[in-house]
């Protein structure tokens, strides 16, 4: 599993106050995986929103073509599958990092395939972590710890 806590955290979007539930946006085109990641995160006291593809995720984040004024939601972490039809998790990551509003939000990439070039590509683009599927509870616990640590 790749790791790497990059750069400086601005105080804007990524800050999680102690005692607050982190709000996580989970993106995955597989229904079963969405349900699993949602439960894993909820069991770790996270508030969870799921999206079934990258365009929907971008919409939710306020970067989409169909975003309505005033409906932008703040998230503390984005966890996305790599392999998705249309826009991949990597492309989603790039869009988030290009956004002045959202670039400080940590992004975690998940994949069922352990491909070193894929991992380094994602980390170089600014992903906080790369996680291998299927996710386990210990993975999510580590992720949460990492998220809280990176905040400091």
């Amino acid at each position, binding site marked *: 599993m790749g790791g790497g806590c990059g750069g400086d955290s601005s105080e804007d979007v990524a800050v999680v106050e102690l005692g607050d539930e982190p709000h996580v946006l989970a993106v995955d085109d*597989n229904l079963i995986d969405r349900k699993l990641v949602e439960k894993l995160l909820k069991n770790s006291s996270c508030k969870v929103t799921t999206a079934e593809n990258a365009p929907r995720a971008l919409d939710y984040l306020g970067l989409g073509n169909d975003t309505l004024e005033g409906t932008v939601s703040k998230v503390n972490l984005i966890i996305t599958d790599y*392999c998705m039809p249309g826009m991949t998790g990597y492309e989603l990551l790039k869009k988030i990092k290009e956004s002045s509003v959202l670039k400080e939000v940590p992004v975690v990439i998940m994949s*069922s395939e352990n491909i070193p070039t894929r991992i380094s590509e994602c980390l170089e683009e600014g992903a906080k972590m790369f996680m291998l599927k*299927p996710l386990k509870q210990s993975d999510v616990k580590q992720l949460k710890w990492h998220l809280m640590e990176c905040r400091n």
Partner: protein
Amino acid sequence: MEVVQIQRRLVDYTKSLFMEGFLDGQFLQLQQLQDESNPDFVVEVVSLFFDDSEKLLNELTIALDQPNVDFKKVDGHVHQLKGSSSSIGAQRVKNACIAFRSFCEGQNIEGCLACLQQVKQEYYLVKNKLETLFRLEQQIVASGGSIPMIEMGF
């Protein structure tokens, strides 16, 4: 039958599913995620898996029946099925999907057809096993007992 006997049967049955490779540690992860706030979590996720898999198996049958097989499309479906089966711990289905993908890559229609049969077989086997497992759980709960947690030495 007494609750204790059904509980014993459930434990033995579940262990056999692991021993025979139908299920792997990921299934235990699912069971551990279940709690009072979501007491039917495992059944819900597995039911989603059944629905999703049957759709995918249908799509695969149709896709491989075309005069010009779109191997990318076929691979896409197998990738989905491999993912879901892996996520719920259906090990033999997952392994059958892995083999299937290499035939897709090789654009080998015969190999793909054989793999589809294999995946279907493994799917229906594990479906049957899981339904039996859930039935045993239901019997225990209906008799006022609690579901024993399986401890495996993983």
